[in-house]
């Protein structure tokens, strides 16, 4: 008896608590924009950076008087870098917070969960950095403002060939669509151009020990190793590779872009290369102004995810302004018409497949810092 009274009390309190939160979110004086980001977990720096960038764009527009006579309200949900969570929070943003558009996710696996939900609800979604081609194939409400994996994988393969590396081993994170896609396109281009793949190994996000895979890779004596996964595992992979006496450089994609890469990887990352969307060393005034403003606010230089987060919000606001409304269909059409938008990460034009065509930069790790090497255009 005592127990059931307590239960009743607890559930009443819960209902009351939720009831109060529920009615706050649908407010007509603001434009609600939903953001799904991995603020914690395995790819936490991605979410935190893109969120910082997005928030900066929102603050700027609100300081300038808002949009369509209203203030922008950014509602951010953390998916904890967990598969499955991104879809749940996207549904919550659409049905409870009544958002006009969705921004996110950085990682392709999570954007693939969100895309069909946004499509069904008729809510435009812009992913800042998901490079897997399948993301925008979910439907005509799903956009991205970055290049895609066939391009990125090809860029790294071209780079390896230009370096004279004939034999490359591959290490893929099979839990990430992003990594699988990158590996696929790298391998295709590399083998078509007389390159040899000496070994293909895989692991899953969250793994810590890669000695078994690296020992197998070492036996093939490659000139370089293509590690298409995310920074957290790649840093540990490099550390363990050096311990096993593997000295060849690692190559990777924009998933390496995080301060953690060099913090954890340290000396092991020296002389490795990865492709990226933008370099904060770029001297152009647009980029340097952004870098300065970001540094003042967050005390660190922006990485590519921050720049892409910023651009994704800017493109959404630009489309809202042109559409003159936040209604789903009109907003979608306006986003689709984005042409030569001057973003931090380059001039952005969305093609008929809702992807952006942009050049990639190759970065290297030198003296513990990320340094610009070259730009490769599509």
């Amino acid at each position, binding site marked *: 008896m005592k127990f059931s009274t307590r239960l009743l009390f607890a559930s009443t309190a819960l209902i009351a608590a939720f009831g109060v939160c529920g009615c706050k979110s649908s407010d007509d004086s603001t434009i609600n924009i939903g953001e799904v980001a991995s603020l914690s977990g395995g790819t936490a720096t991605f979410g935190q950076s893109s969120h910082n960038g997005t928030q900066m764009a929102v603050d700027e527009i609100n300081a300038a008087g808002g949009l369509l006579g209203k203030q922008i309200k950014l509602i951010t949900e953390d998916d904890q870098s967990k598969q499955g969570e991104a879809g749940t929070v996207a549904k919550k943003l659409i049905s409870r917070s009544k958002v006009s558009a969705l921004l996110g996710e950085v990682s392709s696996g999570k954007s693939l969960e969100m895309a069909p939900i946004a499509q069904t609800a008729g809510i435009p979604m812009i992913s800042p950095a998901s490079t897997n081609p399948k993301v925008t194939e979910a439907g005509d409400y799903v956009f991205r403002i970055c290049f895609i994996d066939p391009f990125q994988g090809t860029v790294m393969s071209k780079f390896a060939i230009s370096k004279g590396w004939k034999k490359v081993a591959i290490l893929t994170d099979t839990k990430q669509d992003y990594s699988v896609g990158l590996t696929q396109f790298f391998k295709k281009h590399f083998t078509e151009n007389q390159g040899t793949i000496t070994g293909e*190994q895989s692991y899953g996000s969250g793994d810590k*020990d890669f000695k078994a895979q690296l*020992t*197998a890779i070492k036996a093939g004596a490659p000139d370089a190793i293509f590690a298409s996964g995310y920074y*957290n595992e790649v840093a540990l992979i490099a*550390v363990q590779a050096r311990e096993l006496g593997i000295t060849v450089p690692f190559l990777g994609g924009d998933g390496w872009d995080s301060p*953690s890469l060099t913090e*954890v990887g340290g000396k092991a990352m020296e002389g490795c290369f990865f492709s990226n969307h933008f370099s904060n060393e770029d001297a152009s005034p647009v980029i340097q102004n952004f870098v300065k403003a970001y540094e003042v606010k967050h005390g660190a230089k922006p990485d590519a995810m921050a720049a892409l987060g910023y651009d994704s919000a800017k493109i959404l606001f630009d489309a809202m302004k042109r559409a003159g409304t936040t209604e789903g269909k009109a907003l979608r059409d306006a986003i689709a018409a984005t042409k030569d938008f001057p973003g931090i990460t380059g001039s952005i034009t969305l093609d008929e497949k809702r992807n952006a065509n942009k050049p990639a930069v190759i970065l290297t790790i030198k003296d513990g810092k990320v340094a610009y090497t070259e730009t490769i255009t599509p």
Partner: protein
Amino acid sequence: MDQFLQQLLNGLFQGSIYALIALGYTMVYGVLRFINFAHGDVFMLGAFTALGLHKLMGPTLALLPWPVSLLIVLLVSMTLCAALGIIIERLAYRPLRDRPRLNVLITAIGVSLFIEYSAQLLFGATQRPFPDLIPRTAIANAGGLTISVAQVIVLVTTLALLAGLRIVVMKTRMGLAMRALSLNPTASTLMGVNNSVVISFTFGLGSALAAAGGILYASLYPSIEPFMGIQPGLKAFVAAVLGGIGNIPGAALGGLIIGVTETLVKGYGQELGIPSGYSEGVAFVLLILILVFKPSGILGRVEREKV
């Protein structure tokens, strides 16, 4: 052949870290017949305490030779975590001592989540680099096999703690009390054993072992975050069950079996068409098979239920 030997070594070292964590699990279970799910989280706190210590006294530690500074960091973190383990027991488990065992089990899961998310609040969610308490050098020998200093330290520490634990349990008065409590708590009280003290001691010792495991694990894989304890905690739990839960040498054996199996599947599975993602699956299938044929684990005793 060299490659196979290297893989075997990789597996051996991987297994010894599981074994180290499993020791604490199995000891607490052996005495109290209760699985402390928060073990993996004390493991995580051990690594974070070491990081904090290193930040606080980094310049002083840098002056000392690394084995000395490693020992200082280990001992201080182990002491702090032992205190924490005792506090956890006092606050969360002791009030439930006379309740059904299931209540304590569920509470342990709650404590585990509480520690994880508090740590996330305190330390932030991003991975942090762990300082090189053990030099990152490889000891290579003529056969082309590589072993790192950290791996050797892990193996030595595991063996030392295994022996130490066995001495504590078998040769000391406290160990005698632990065994008495494990056999029959009521009878041990009648014989003048202060059960509360013994239980506190057991938790303290278990938490100290977890902290040592956390620091060595972080030295091998130098990226730490609040949820780092879940995966190794689970593996160690499986290792403990595999070896026969409650049995200390069994936990070590279980850890080694899981480590070697996983490594071999990762290293050779690709050629046989088993993706490396299934390495854990294979380890768990092994667990199921062993439990089917020997339900008490490899070294476990069969206990008759009294009716």
